[in-house]
């Protein structure tokens, strides 16, 4: 019986996760979402430039639909924060899948706030090259992006007219599901072009980012679904990330309960093994003594 409990079929584990997440989604409970310091740093970095004339923010959509639940809410809320404070915002994508996501984010917020493409925002689209694209942008923004995603010249649009290089942006936020932050943005853009960089990453990648936070190469970090929910809280617009906190909490609790259960079963089975081993040794000794005596 202990062996069976020690090696519960993985399908039972999967079922427990389904039940916990499903129940949490159907019957959500309010949970506190205190913003963490690194998330607040990103929020403040955007907030700090709102009084600056011609403030410009660049958003880079370096993620694919798999990371949409974690990063898209951050994109939407940063765009909203920028547009509400009359900060011009430009979007681009280093991953081809980021194009559809970037467009959707801009379309939804611009439509909601009545902002005009070309004047208040634009989306540049995707270009291959990654590192070389950043280097190109760093030296000559308009040669890297002569037209935006919709075919309008960047030299003619008010939102990009006076941007001649990457360093002209007051703040750059990269939403990354891969290694574009450490391998590309920090290494090239921050080092060479001295941009102010913030990051939004999937939860699994956040341990990778801490050295850059400590060194100041990243001014702040929004990490995973929890970070996205914290940003929604700061922006006072609860959305999908906030709703996702309850199921995520439920899943984590279930995992920890299973880990605890597995360890309890492991300790019980180990004690039984030791007890069985002792008993076998005693029997052997008894037999040996009996043989010697006889």
């Amino acid at each position, binding site marked *: 019986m202990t062996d069976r409990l020690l090696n519960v079929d993985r399908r039972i584990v999967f079922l*427990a996760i389904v039940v916990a997440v499903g129940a949490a989604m159907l019957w959500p409970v309010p949970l506190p979402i205190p913003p963490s310091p690194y998330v607040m740093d990103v929020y403040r970095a955007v907030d700090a430039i709102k009084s600056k004339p011609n403030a410009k923010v660049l958003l880079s959509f370096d993620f694919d639909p798999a990371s949409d639940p974690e990063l898209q809410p951050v994109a939407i809320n940063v765009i909203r924060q920028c547009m509400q404070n009359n900060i011009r915002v430009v979007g681009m994508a280093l991953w081809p899948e980021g194009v559809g996501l970037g467009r959707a984010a801009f379309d939804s917020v611009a439509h909601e706030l009545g902002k005009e493409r070309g004047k208040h925002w634009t989306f540049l689209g995707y270009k291959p090259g990654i590192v070389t*694209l950043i280097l190109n942008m760093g030296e000559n923004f308009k040669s890297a992006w002569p037209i935006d995603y919709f075919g309008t010249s960047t030299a003619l649009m008010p939102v990009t007219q006076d941007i001649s290089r990457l360093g002209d942006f007051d703040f750059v936020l990269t939403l990354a599901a891969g290694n574009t932050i450490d391998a590309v943005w920090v290494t090239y853009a921050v080092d060479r072009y001295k941009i102010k960089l913030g990051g939004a990453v999937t*939860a699994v990648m956040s341990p990778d980012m801490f050295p850059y936070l400590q060194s100041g190469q990243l001014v702040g970090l929004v990490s995973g679904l929890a970070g996205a929910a914290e940003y929604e809280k700061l922006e006072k617009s609860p959305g999908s990330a906030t709703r996702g906190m309850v199921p995520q909490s439920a899943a984590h609790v279930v995992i920890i309960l299973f880990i605890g259960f597995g360890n309890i079963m492991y300790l019980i089975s180990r004690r039984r093994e030791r007890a069985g081993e002792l008993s076998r040794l005693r029997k052997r000794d008894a037999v040996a003594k009996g043989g010697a005596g006889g």
Partner: protein
Amino acid sequence: MLFLKRTLPLIIAFVFGITAIALYYIPHQKAANLTETFAMWDRLIAAFAYFLALYSLISLHARRIRRQQAGWGYSLFVYFGIVAMVAAGFYNRGHWALVGLESDGAYDWLFTYVYIPAEASMFALLAFFIASAAYRTFRARTTEAVILLVAAAIVMLGRVPVGVLIWSRMPELQEWLMSVPNMAAKRGILLGVYLGAVATALRVIFGIERSYLGGGED
């Protein structure tokens, strides 16, 4: 032929490698212009890689269908997907492909309602796999395993609002764990990794490492 397959690529790797290193130390505008030119060339080459990937994909699945290898039905779906997305992109709600992509067309629909859910579903599998892997392997067999177990529990609880309910300082503890011990370990690993990267780059530049050319010893 050997010159084109071996010698010329090595010369190109050396010249561009040394030049790229030198450009990092030269702030002059001419160096910046050269960097920009190299960047544009590289982007052109990267774009060609897509054609190579498409050709490889199509020829691989064509071979599977032709020979009716196990699972060849899935290869039919590959063609179906390619044709559907390319056709939708080219048609572009009647505006065809030479203008920007139109919103709310077939391409958008396929991307939003087929591609995104498919990718998200694959990613969502991880939640289940993590649960089963954690249950199976996070056992207190050794001291190191106990440390791993405790750290995992703290991070898992600290990252979600439930952790705040259990202990108000759980997020702080999680933050400390990530910022101090985790960072120390990461920096140690990173130092070795980046030194290895520099060594490999030097080997490639000086033509000592030739595996990227495809086999062959020095």
